[in-house]
């Protein structure tokens, strides 16, 4: 069973902070805050056919317009049954997920009982709280039955990794108000308005929590208006700073001109086909990009990606670039970057796999390498880490392909003598290049020869199965190892 960060008890703080909350404001807010218990079932990527163990975790949410409750996606991910507890109501009520945004860690849920939220005030959504201003958090840390609120100062506003997906960066606000597990999904309030959704903390920093600011909330709500969530657009490029004058001169930039150099472009991202490596991004959405890659945002300077975040998929993004000494204005239609999935934590989906003759094949992605534990970057086999993280830098075209891993072997006399059978990348099967799980299935099922030949990446390693014996053993192996289906492609 996977461990999920679940929630510490901070009951004593709630008493003190409730007293410090502005008189008259707390009751209305408290009535709108909901405790959410998620009875989740998380698949096991090492036994990808298994539906996984069940677990329960608690979080918070708050009532918004439309009879819905907003919370974090990580509070309701992989839910099998959601129980909602309203303020002052001891009875659980069933909830269902309406829409989830895993890239921005937000979700909307709706109670199954149609009129349950009648009379519960929907909290109005405010703006970005200024630095050093006070905010209050509300929620049910550690799953306690009684609501808890804490108060703190907005100490930093920056773009940072959202750990739920681990592959997306958006604006986040740091506060010293206690944000503990169980607070997740709870509202952060200033002057009676929502200014954020509590969502994560940082183990390396003490007394610091983070909340999702309203510009991300509004982006999510606008996207989800049609009932489906499409996600954030992504330029899918890597740039480098141009603080050194020589680098700017070589790029042909004038004195006073600033920008960043495009170093790498992912195939299939918004920039693919429009930008080239070596281009200098001078302006984005009309705003000049500084040599350190920042843009002005009010009194703050924030990474230029923030201006991409402020768009929805399908909208055009204006870019001014410098290419081969000439300045050009481009308008790029923004789209999501599907390739990001391989680097993201995955939720609400069954792992993809194929089992043949006891050999378990899966795509190479973050969930696959996480079978080595949280410290997978140190513990996973080098070929997996290299192919997932570093090879795409050298060969972006590899991102168009799916890399397939022989994850492990279910031992049987038909396969027990092959030399390599664990955590090894498959390059070719029966002389066919393998660029997807489907390719692999076809290469095996369409083979009419007496043997199946598996060629692995690196060091020239191979494995061979006798086709007739493997076909014969297949059903027996699935039965003996209680694998209900040989594939989920």
């Amino acid at each position: 069973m996977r461990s999920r960060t679940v929630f510490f008890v901070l009951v004593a703080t709630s008493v003190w902070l409730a007293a410090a909350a502005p008189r008259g404001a707390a009751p209305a807010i408290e009535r709108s805050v909901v405790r959410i218990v998620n009875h989740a079932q998380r698949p096991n990527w090492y036994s990808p056919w298994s539906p996984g163990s069940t677990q329960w975790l608690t979080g918070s949410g708050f009532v918004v317009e439309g009879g819905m409750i907003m919370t974090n996606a990580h509070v309701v991910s992989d839910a099998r049954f959601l129980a909602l507890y309203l303020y002052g109501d001891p009875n659980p009520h069933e909830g269902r997920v309406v829409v989830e945004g895993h890239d921005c860690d937000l979700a909307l849920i709706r109670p199954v009982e149609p009129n349950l939220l009648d009379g519960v005030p929907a909290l109005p959504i405010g703006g970005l709280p200024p630095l050093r201003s006070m905010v209050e958090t509300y929620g049910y840390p550690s799953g306690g039955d009684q609501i808890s609120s804490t108060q703190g100062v907005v100490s930093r506003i920056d773009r940072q990794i959202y750990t739920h997906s681990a592959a997306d960066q958006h604006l986040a606000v740091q506060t010293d108000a206690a944000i503990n597990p169980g607070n997740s999904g709870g509202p952060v309030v200033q002057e009676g308005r929502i200014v954020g959704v509590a969502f994560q903390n940082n183990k390396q920093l003490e007394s610091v929590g983070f909340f999702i600011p309203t510009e991300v909330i509004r982006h999510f709500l606008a996207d989800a208006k049609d009932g489906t969530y499409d996600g954030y657009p992504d330029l899918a490029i890597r740039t480098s700073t141009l603080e050194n004058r020589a680098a700017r001169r070589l790029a042909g930039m004038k004195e006073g001109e600033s920008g960043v150099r495009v170093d790498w472009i992912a195939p299939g991202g918004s920039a693919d086909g429009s930008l080239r490596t070596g281009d200098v991004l001078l302006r984005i959405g009309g705003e000049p990009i500084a040599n350190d890659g920042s843009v002005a945002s009010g009194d703050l300077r924030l990474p230029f990606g923030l201006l991409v975040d402020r768009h929805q998929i399908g909208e055009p993004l204006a870019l001014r670039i410098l290419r081969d000494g000439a300045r050009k204005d481009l308008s790029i239609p923004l789209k999501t970057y599907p390739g990001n999935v391989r680097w993201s934590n995955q939720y609400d989906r069954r792992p993809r796999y194929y089992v043949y003759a006891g050999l378990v094949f899966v795509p190479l992605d973050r969930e696959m390498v996480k079978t080595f534990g949280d410290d997978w970057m140190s513990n996973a086999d080098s070929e997996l880490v290299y192919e997932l993280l570093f090879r795409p830098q050298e060969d972006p075209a590899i991102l168009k392909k799916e890399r397939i891993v022989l994850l492990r072997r279910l031992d049987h006399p038909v396969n027990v003598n092959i030399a390599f059978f664990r955590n090894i990348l498959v390059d070719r099967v029966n002389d066919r290049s393998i660029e997807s799980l489907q390719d692999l299935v076809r290469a095996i099922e369409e083979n009419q020869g007496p043997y199946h030949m598996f060629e692995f990446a690196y060091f020239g390693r191979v494995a061979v199965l006798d086709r007739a014996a493997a076909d014969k053993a297949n059903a027996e192996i699935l039965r003996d190892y209680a694998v209900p289906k040989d594939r989920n492609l």
Partner: protein
Amino acid sequence: MKTLIRLQLFALAVVALAAPAPRLAYESQVVVLVVTTQDYDPWKPWEKKTPETRIVQAVVLDGSLLATTADLVEGATVILVEKHGRPLREPARIVHIDPDANLALLTVDSPSFFRDLRPAVLAPSMPTEGQVSTVRWRSGQLEVSASRISRIEVGTTYLGALEHASLIVETDLSGGGWSEPLFADGRLIGLTYAQDGQSSTVTPVDILRAYLDAARAPGSYREFASLDVSWQVNRDKALTRSLGLEGEPRGVLVTQVPWGSSGCGALRPRDILLGLDGHAIDAAGYYEHRRYGRLKFTQIAVEGHHAGDVIPGEVWRDGKKVSVRLTLRPARAAQDLIPVRSSGAAPPYVIAGGLVFRELDGDFLRTWGKDWEKKAPPFLMTRYDLFRTTQTPRRRRVILLAYVLPSAYNLGYGNLETLPVARINGRDVDSIADVDEAFQHPDGDFHRIVFEPNPVRAEVVLEAATFEKATREILDEYQIPQRTRLPETPLPDLGDACAERR
């Protein structure tokens, strides 16, 4: 009661075996080396680290020689010898060293030094079982510890490239692994080079004798050889039959033949290597050694052979048996693209505009500490694991921008580190000498350093006009005495590229 009697009998037996142990002889055959080393700092290759002194053992050999393991004395600033446990120390010097075999020979120039010492008698070969004695001097006392031979294993020398059979010994000695000699029946059977708990690993007398013979022989030293081909076990009938070889699986499947290896020009990927030098190889990669039983077949290249020898082999290729002849190549860590160890020589480097360049090697990676394989940057470690042995005629070393000495000149690059360099000013760089040369040829008004693709940055650009002045000022500011240290000798030619897989 029966058990007790058995134990007593066993104890008597041990005493009986131990009784003839020539303790007095050991006192004249084993000496202490007090070795002071001062390694170069891999991050500041122009500086040496704090000197370290260690106490290690050596054994006296015929010809006024002392033998010890190379890793303990390589690059030493001072080596002193103590004999008979007395603190009278004489300076010693290295006569010959083979870091890849991990053996070294020393002598003492004082004419009288060896007068009251007796050379150890070498056993004809290593024993395969039984009790042996591990001997060392400790605090002026000779310590003779009971040890038991556990097994013989073919493995690679510590930080070297030679693969040979070693003795694995369970010992009563604590904290060993510092070249303690082992004796059986009063004869030398090997020197320890590692100890984990109570299990020590021993370079056997067979390797020591071959080394002595080669080092003493007139003319240039004939290096040990290694096969250096990648292979996989061949236990699966389906695999061998798919290659047309009927019957029980036998031989090993050759998977990769690196440039410069003994297989180059003779073996090909997908060959089944059935035999070598007259020995049949089984499907697990073992052969039957006339004295030591089943050993991994890579031992064949070592035993009775040296680099340059040609040995016959038999492979299954394209559905038939084919005879091949392998020219054995030296076992050298330096032949790898990312060597596990650079020799004790001063590490080459270049400082250009505050950018510190050096070669990527195991010495650098080990600076991440005891768990370096887990703690060094994954970007470097994955390269080390996947491409370490893949030196090619066009790619012989990985050059790193190790880090930057920040200054106004290199503004914006101060946080860059451990990035592999592909080209400088349009020139491929394959050695530190290439780096130095490339900076002599700016690309117009600039120096352009292009990195191998990485998650951090594609290139660094510096002003050429102020480069020399800025470099001098940075060297002054950071008090670095020397801008560059170039390799003393270029890498040797390893011949033609090998045949690729069909």
